[in-house]
């Protein structure tokens, strides 16, 4: 399972990575913000279907392109539009949650998360 973790905080990326690796998901790429992620998603997609990310775990609040914008970009893309997407954020503003839900996400993880939560959410998202 090829996973992209998007967060501007190195510590969060590392935490998520540790958890995912513990859950047996070790093919992990990191992106530091929405734009970085968007480039990486498309770069991989260009290499062919088998290179595409199979899950995106993204933060919401990031400098530049936010997680919501990234989600919107992903969902409106014909190539990668169906990639499972998990939000991992502290944002609890209802408009944003509603919007992400409308765009379609597989899980909404509230930071702080722990291994249990992530495991559960990945199960919910059908990843595990």
């Amino acid at each position, binding site marked *: 399972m090829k996973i992209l973790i998007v967060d501007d905080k190195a510590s969060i990326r590392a935490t998520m990575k540790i958890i995912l690796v513990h859950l047996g998901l070790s093919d992990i790429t990191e992106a530091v913000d929405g734009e970085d992620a968007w480039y990486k998603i498309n770069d991989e997609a260009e290499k062919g279907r088998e290179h595409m990310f199979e899950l995106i775990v993204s933060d919401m609040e990031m400098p530049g392109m936010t997680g919501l914008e990234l989600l919107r970009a992903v969902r409106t893309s014909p190539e990668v539009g169906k990639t499972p997407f998990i939000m991992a954020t502290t944002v609890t503003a209802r408009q944003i949650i509603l919007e992400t*839900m409308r765009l379609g996400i597989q899980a909404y993880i509230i930071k702080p998360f722990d291994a249990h939560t992530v495991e559960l959410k990945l199960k919910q998202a059908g990843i595990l």
Partner: protein
Amino acid sequence: MSNDGHDCLDAMSSEFIAEIKDDLASLEPALLAMEKKGAGTDDDLINHAFRSIHSIKGGAGFINFKELSSLSHAMENVLMRVREKTLVITSDIADALLTGFDKMKLMVERIGKGEACDYEKEKIALQNILNPDKKALGSLASTTQFPSVHKDSDYLPAEAYQVLKPLGTSTIFQGHEFLVDKKRLDHALAGQKFIYAVYVRFETDLRARNKGEDAIVDDIQSIGDILFSDLEESRGQEEREGFFCVISTILDLPLLSQVLEIGKTQMTLVDRQFADYETLVKGVSSRVAKDKPAPEPVEPVPAEPDEDSAQGASESILSASSTAQTLRINVDLISRLMNRAGELVLARNQLRPFLAENAKENSLASGIMQNLDMVTTDIQEAIMQMRMQPVIDLMGKYKRVVRDIARRISKKVDFILEGGDVEVDRTVLEKLANPLTHLIRNCIDHGIESPKERVGRSKPETGTIRIKTSHQGGQVHITISDDGAGIDPQLILSKAFEKGLVTEDQVDKMTQKEKIALIFLPGFTTSEEITDISGRGVGMDVVKTNIESLRGRIEIDTVKGEGTRVHLIIPLTLAIVPSLIVSTGAFKFAIPQVSIKEILYLEKGTVQNQMENIAGSEVLRLRGRIFPVIRLRTLLGIRTYIEATGTGEKEEEKRKALADRRQDAVGQDAIEDSKKRMQKKDRRRHHWDTTYVIVLKLGENLFGLCVDALYDIEEVVVEPLSEYIRHLKCFAGTTLLGNGDVITVLDIQGIAAFSSLKFDSIKTAEEKRNEAKEKEAKAKGEKRNLIIFCSGKNEYFALELKNISRLESLNPGDIHYTGHLKYVEYKGHAVLLFSMDEFLPVNEFELTTDEIFAVFPKHISSRVGIIASAIIDTIETDQLIDRDDTCPEPVLGKLFMDGRMVQVLDPDKFAEMIEEKLMMTKGAGASRENPHS
């Protein structure tokens, strides 16, 4: 396995704290800027602040730091409103945000110390911003009205439906069961969705929020599926206050509550017979469980060490391309690395002779050496670079300090920072914090006037404090300037006088700058009343001491009514100190170059002549200034073992202590070295009783240190003294020379203290002596040794012999002309020559004779001479020198000698004139060059 996950999180908490600190650091300037810009704040800034607080909240949650999490949440709420443009930051709001910020900072500082922070006050202040009407909404008890018991109809076929029981103890759902479509339920369960029962109140949840029933249904449908709803049934039934629904969603309960804007008490998970169901519940409640004192996992975790996955973890972490450009490194580690780099340099130096030896036979060796040199130097530089920190890290904090103080005392101040990217060693930066704070406080408290006063003086209402930092030649210059009231030297003077810090006599002789410098005296303060900001009487002297302990210096410029400028000059780093290596007897020492004002060479025979004894100290007279001199030999109790050459030395050596003997070996090298140097560069011969006097600066005072020989200036890495010798005042530390020798670094301040130098008593004694001399001279006429020389044909001048360093005879052909400037070559240097007509209204000097002379006065740069057509005589006379109004400035007076009128020059004024002349030629040179460039 999940346990491992938790451990990893714990291990990372320091990383989180570090990031929280970073975010805090970036939050403060953003808040301050937002306050300043008010409604005009740009989105970037707001977003930046919002992101910072948001990250803090996130990080706090991760390390389970509830206090911080809660407070940052309150701050976030306020900033959210700002971001939505429904709130503009006023000073009051900024106050609440900033005090909240302070508390957060305190919390972070106290983290792990087990002290709880009370943050209710700050939190309420923040909440009050959002709810100005309702004060202190602590925990809002929900005004629950129990819904009338709702009975489910049980007429539906059991196969197609499943009964769901709400979990939990909420009275809202007590006794309720819901029948839901089994197919849809199974679908939701297959997706591991949460199934919630929700009670929606018509009044508070919908009407009060201007929300229609459709809207809530819409919302629910965007986040999940509605499995059951009794909305239709409840419609129109007046006794019903709300409706129930069962929904499936991936959202956690708190989020659901947030999205639907329905209280958490009105929703609950529902029971069902599903294997994974327990997991789901546990997942949600796991954090709650963690927060409790004994957070043991509920179910026993299989303790199988999962080798494979652990390995996979480390591998993937290692292989993943890191996107980070910066890395946090422990300072101790850097220090260790730096020490090791020092060792590397040393090893390289030791290796060098071997490689040089080999280079003759093997051409590879020199290449290896070069490579090693380059790499070593590069490593050393890189490590030094690692210790560097931009000054903004410190200066940025003052924005807040300025704002707070200004607000407290109702002054308006703009704070401008320039050159924040200048980098200095972190230890220097740390030590700058206190003095800078003090200086800035002074600026606001004493410098900037109240807005009213400022307007009265037709200045802008808002004062400006500006800190400018720049690099200049290996040093950092920091200028703190304000456009405030300036310092009144008269006021300083009267204060200092009042406090008995100066005497009336002293005051008369003081220059403007010296008067201002009085504020550096211990116990000086001018504030009429003691404010809580400054004026406690401990101030500038502490600032000065602090700056000097950094081997820096401080200067003040001020114009009354216009402002003050404080200039700090500090070294880039404390670790590497350019030092002069000197020796006395067989021992070498390092003297920090910054303390050295100049170096004098006293030849055999002249040592005694030039040293005097005043007030019990040996003193030296230099250009009219007198200062105490310490002999390093006496200071350190160094006995001389090596008297000359010959066999006596060896015999003596046998009796000597091991340490001394070994040191002698070093000393021998040193002396050999020194001799070579003397032969090569120095025209003077070396005698054991000749001496070098290193003139050292100690604040405003000077003192001399006699040493035997000088070596190079080396960049030494100063290491602290071990505890066994730390109490020795004379040493600042130890260091290794390039050749591997250990030497001590002299502590200038310590030496002065150790020798109990009494600068003041020497000064007063000297003053008295001078007065007496003057009186005597006036009464009798003083004996003077004069040298009389002729300029032009028959104009005669005299200078006292002691003011002349040497006389040279020249051939007019040796003179080189550049424009109107005349030069001669002297020992490979160009020496500038002036003739008397360039200073005095006398006849022009004409080169008529075959031989001319150059007189080199002391007290000025050795590269200047005066042309004389002849040296007439040296005389000793006590003849009174007549001074009349016709005497031009540098002429002390006239006297008659063998029928010639001789104008006696005033050495000090003449020297001044020459210096001026030098300046002018420099200036002229510069201005001539300009048109070309």
